[in-house]
């Protein structure tokens, strides 16, 4: 009965357990980066605005990587409220903050040089989802209480190497005037969907270990009498 599992009373402590310092610092820096084109005035061009928004999106995602950090994870490991609910609540909170924040970041960029909003938003959403699903994956695999640090390092590595190593035939980091803009954003959307799927799968608690042996002998689950 999942309905019973979600209690509005959970919202308040969940809000309090969020790493607001990390999100706040990342958000502030992100807005600062997004403001650079406006601050530069005449000198700013579309390329700079795009770079600023991309850097800004990565910055916020780095902060969001810490969202699933929960020092009390082990203490609350065996509660009936599902992990999907506990994680989902945090993701929902950060997503609503991200939506407001991103709107502000987009509006900070002067309209003349602003890249197409839909495309760049898909990129930003992919970065954010990568951070969140990465954290969910780290918890799913490693069961650590604070995956944020490692996820941020991973995200950063990807953000540095991505533009360097993406093959030309699967271009992702293209400027708006590039004819491949639409195709690249199709790819971004594919990545986004893949991350959402990974995140959703990792939100579920492992019922059985999916080791080869475990897969081979599901009969091992037949336990003693259920008296």
């Amino acid at each position: 009965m999942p309905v019973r599992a979600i209690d509005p009373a959970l919202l308040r402590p969940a809000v309090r357990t969020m790493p607001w310092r990390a999100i706040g610092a990342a958000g502030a820096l992100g807005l600062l980066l997004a403001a650079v084109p406006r601050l530069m005035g005449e000198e700013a061009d579309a390329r700079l605005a795009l770079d600023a928004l991309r850097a800004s999106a990565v910055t916020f995602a780095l902060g969001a990587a810490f969202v699933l950090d929960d020092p009390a994870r082990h203490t609350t490991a065996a509660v009936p409220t599902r992990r999907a609910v506990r994680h989902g609540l945090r993701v929902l909170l950060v997503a609503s903050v991200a939506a407001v924040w991103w709107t502000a970041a987009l509006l900070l960029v002067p309209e003349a040089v602003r890249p197409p909003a839909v495309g760049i938003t898909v990129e930003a959403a992919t970065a954010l989802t990568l951070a969140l699903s990465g954290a969910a994956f780290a918890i799913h695999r490693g069961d650590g209480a604070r995956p944020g640090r490692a996820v941020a390092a991973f995200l950063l590595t990807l953000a540095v190497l991505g533009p360097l190593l993406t093959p030309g035939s699967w271009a992702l980091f293209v400027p708006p005037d590039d004819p491949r803009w639409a195709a690249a954003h199709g790819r971004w959307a594919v990545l986004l969907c893949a991350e959402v799927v990974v995140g959703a799968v990792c939100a579920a608690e492992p019922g059985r270990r999916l080791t080869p042996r475990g897969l081979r002998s599901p009969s091992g689950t037949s336990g003693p009498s259920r008296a």
Partner: protein
Amino acid sequence: MSTLTAGTPAATVTAGTRTSWAAVLTLARFETRLLLLRAPVLVAFAVYLGWTVWRTRTSWDGFPALQDADRATQGAPLLVGLAVLLCANQAVLRSRRYDTDRHLAVLVVQPWRRTAAHLLSVAAVALLTGVCVAGQFTWEALKPGAVGQGSPGELLVGPLCVLLFGAAGVLLARLVPSAFAAPLLIVLCLFFALLAPMASDEDSAARWLSPVVEESGPHPLPSELLGRPAAWHALYLAGLALSVALTAVLLSGAGRLRSLRAACAGAVLLTLVGAVAQSQGVPRETTEARTRYSVTPEKEQRCAERDATTYCAFPEWGARTDDWDRVLDGVRSLAGGAAQDRPLVVRQRVEARYGLAGDAAIDPATRPGEITVGTSWGGNRAPEFAVAVAGVLVAGTEAKAGGMCDGRMVTVMWLALADRPDPMADLRRVRLDDSDAGSAVVLSRTNPLSMTAAQTEVVRELLLRPKDGTAAKVRAHWAELTAPKVTTDRVARLLGLDEPEARDECL
């Protein structure tokens, strides 16, 4: 990091000092191992090494000028630097993260010595980067086609950047003890690194404040003309890295140590000296030398005789004479008439007045029998040189060859390419659009030549035929083939081909 060790304060010199520093070194070894095994550092090194090896295999087509090769070692270590910034930062924060600070704070090795150990581990990674840089440069230097000389100042930039970034990571951990500060700083660094090249122009002194100042053009300049304050920049980076490192040590509880404070002040002074000295712009002597080399190259050159040819090269390029001679010999052996033993002068020329990144064209030589060769070689440069040689053999001077718009172009192109190992491939390589049909511009170090579609058709046909048969016909009809205004149709007939069907109009 010798300054760190030298900074042992007199106040703490006790019987235990030596043991204490031994502990720092042991700790540094331990931290180095951890640092090198962190995933971001491993990935950064893997990408750095992979990319460097992959690129160095074919860089400068095997003919590097070492005064350019040294600068090419600077960009990629930044990747390692960023990874070290992140991981060194996390390493310093490790004890706080696992709440062992309270425990470690009372150990014999004080916090500032632990910071020193972290800095030493960064220095070790910087040293490793230095080994990689040295390896890359040695590889370039050992290539048979290498000329010129590298500058230690330029080679030091890569490792010093790693040191600077790592020290910044340690300092940041002491300033802002939270795990998300370093990643955010890296994004900021990356963004402003992207932004910096846009904001700064050639003459701006401020651009030398950024760690790596890349300047590259298609044609290497003699070392004397570089005008880069490489040594001052290395001093500036070293001073900056030391200042950052010593500040980190001071902030971890060594603030009382007077000698360390003095060392920090010294490092800041070093940084300032480097920063001021590097921002003086290109020295006047260098500007004058650039003009001299560009306008009157013959005064700077040494010449060597090979048969009927004189090769005049800038001192650093003397070793290229044999490579040039081989190409020139190949072209000359196919020519007929007096061209076979006509005296030629191959003169190396460079346009240095517009700085390192300049890509200005060189005016064609007007003296009869003088051929221009650039400072780069290998790849497309060899067939381009062959075209220039053939042009002079056919038209008399480079200037005349440039304005050529008749059937002689067929002879020029055949002479240039017939002796090449893969003439058809070279035909495509010397043409601007990489085509082997239709009209096109043919590249050379001086003014380009142009081929009509008809000439292209004839040249292609000729190159597909055996060389010796055509060579005999060329020698037999040399005078007519090299006569101005000869038509392409006529040339085709003389060389035993049908008249071309394609259009014969100059571009």
